[in-house]
């Protein structure tokens, strides 16, 4: 009896998590001109309008460029640091780990204010650069956590075997270590991209006037009025941020299968 109650409770919790989001997707196909209930028919009109909305397209471009650059920088920094922490015995590694994940232990609002004021003092005003630096520092801890967790599972034996067969440290890194690390690197990059693409808390502080990312664009649209395009935009974002990682997961699984993993 008790177990069934837990089961029903769990179903309700999952419904609570997903029902509102499902309604967003449902309404994005609503033919009604108000973008709300009742559903008057099935239509792609809001997606068409989305594709013709210059401001939204611009926001998408900004978000994608920002996300890609953030992922590149943050993954590079994160992978190097993770290698050091996993592969070497560093004195004070606990303290270093804590310092490196500090950006997510500090409330994001506080991080946003501190960075904005300090860089402004250094004559770096609200700009794409500030936005990029902010996203890098905010995503770095996540990359380090993810990459570190996966690096631990790579055995050193293979590298030592390569070295003992005469490979130089450089050759060993590029031909053995890097390919083995690739899933971890990609996972870190994907994580950084997704977090950057979704971020609004810091972004609203750092973005220059007139520049919008997709989340800040949605936020601005919400403040004006509930435009029906928002649901369509939401659906596109869900497809991007859920579909892409799932695709990545599927590819990773295929690759693992092929390499006999």
């Amino acid at each position: 009896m008790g177990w069934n109650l837990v089961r029903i409770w769990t179903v309700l919790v999952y419904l609570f998590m997903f029902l509102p989001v499902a309604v967003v997707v449902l309404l994005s196909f609503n033919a009604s001109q108000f973008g709300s209930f009742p559903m008057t028919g099935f239509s792609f009109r809001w997606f068409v309008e989305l594709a013709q909305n210059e401001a939204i397209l611009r926001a998408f471009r900004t978000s994608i460029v920002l996300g890609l650059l953030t992922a590149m920088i943050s993954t590079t920094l994160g992978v190097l640091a993770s290698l050091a922490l996993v592969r070497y015995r560093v004195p004070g590694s606990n303290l270093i780990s804590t310092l490196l994940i500090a950006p997510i232990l500090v409330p994001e609002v506080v991080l946003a204010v501190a960075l904005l004021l300090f860089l402004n003092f250094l004559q770096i005003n609200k700009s794409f650069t500030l936005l990029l630096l902010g996203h890098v520092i905010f995503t770095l801890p996540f990359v380090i956590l993810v990459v570190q967790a996966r690096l631990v599972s790579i055995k050193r034996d293979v590298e030592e075997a390569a070295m003992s067969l005469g490979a130089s440290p450089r050759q060993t890194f590029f031909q053995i270590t890097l390919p083995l690390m690739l899933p971890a690197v990609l996972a870190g990059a994907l994580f950084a991209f997704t977090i950057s693409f979704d971020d609004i808390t810091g972004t609203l502080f750092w973005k220059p006037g007139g520049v919008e990312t997709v989340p800040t664009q949605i936020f601005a649209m919400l403040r004006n009025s509930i435009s029906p395009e928002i649901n369509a935009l939401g659906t596109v974002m869900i497809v991007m941020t859920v579909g892409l990682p799932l695709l990545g997961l599927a590819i990773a699984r295929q690759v693992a299968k092929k390499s006999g993993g």
Partner: protein
Amino acid sequence: MSVEAREARQPWILLSPALTAVALLLFVPLLFIVVYSFWLRTATGADEVGFFLDNWQEALTDAFYRDILLNTLKIAAITTLACAVMGYPAAYFIARSKGNKAILLLLLMLPFWISYIIRTMSWINILGVSGAFNTAMMALGIIDEPIQMLYNEVTVILGLVHFLLPFMVLNVFVSLDGIDTNLEDAANSLGATRWQAFTNVTLPLSLPGLAAGGLLCFVLGAGTYITPLVLGGPTDAMFANLVFEAIITQLNWPLGSALSLMLLVVLGALVLIYNRYLGMAQLMKGLG
């Protein structure tokens, strides 16, 4: 240089870019706003460099800030409690389910990938004047006029619970999953009922996960300003809204610095207390 010395230097070369980034983009800026909070915004709009206590006096003694700080902590506490009550049984179910554990876990990860702003605004589609609830109630003839249920403290908490619940479920799941089920069986065979076995064995062992989830819910909940802006009314500002207001709207950066630091001290103290008793490792398990 000897091989050992090179070997010893290597990790520092690898670490230096990340450590430099964290130092220059987090720690120095934090120290900078400590200094900035003692400057003064003048009537002309320029910030006067100096050592003024005005901002701190205003932030610490004005009842307006104190009340909103207390209200923010109250909202975060209710949110955390609701997440625990809703999330614990769900996490228990996932940890103990046999066949569909993988799919339940995958579903649990999905909300992390769905944009926060979309999940927040999705409640407008449910509770808004022309939302699902009102439409259904009117269609059923239960009400004649749509009821405005949005833009109050309850909907702010609802939005926060919706946003933070996955953090709680995930953390509790991680600790429940690490408990040997034989322990419960042993308790049962020694005469404990299933409920007794749960309350005396499983629940205490899962407390670290519950605490980690609770800390995340509380700190993330208390630091938000987006949810109150989207789902709250004009009087539902949380403390982070005051920071946003001071920095972005009023451009009073010295006062904004002081308010930011207040938030940092209050929430940072919680993180430190947590770290003192439970350590960061538990928290990282859920995040990694």
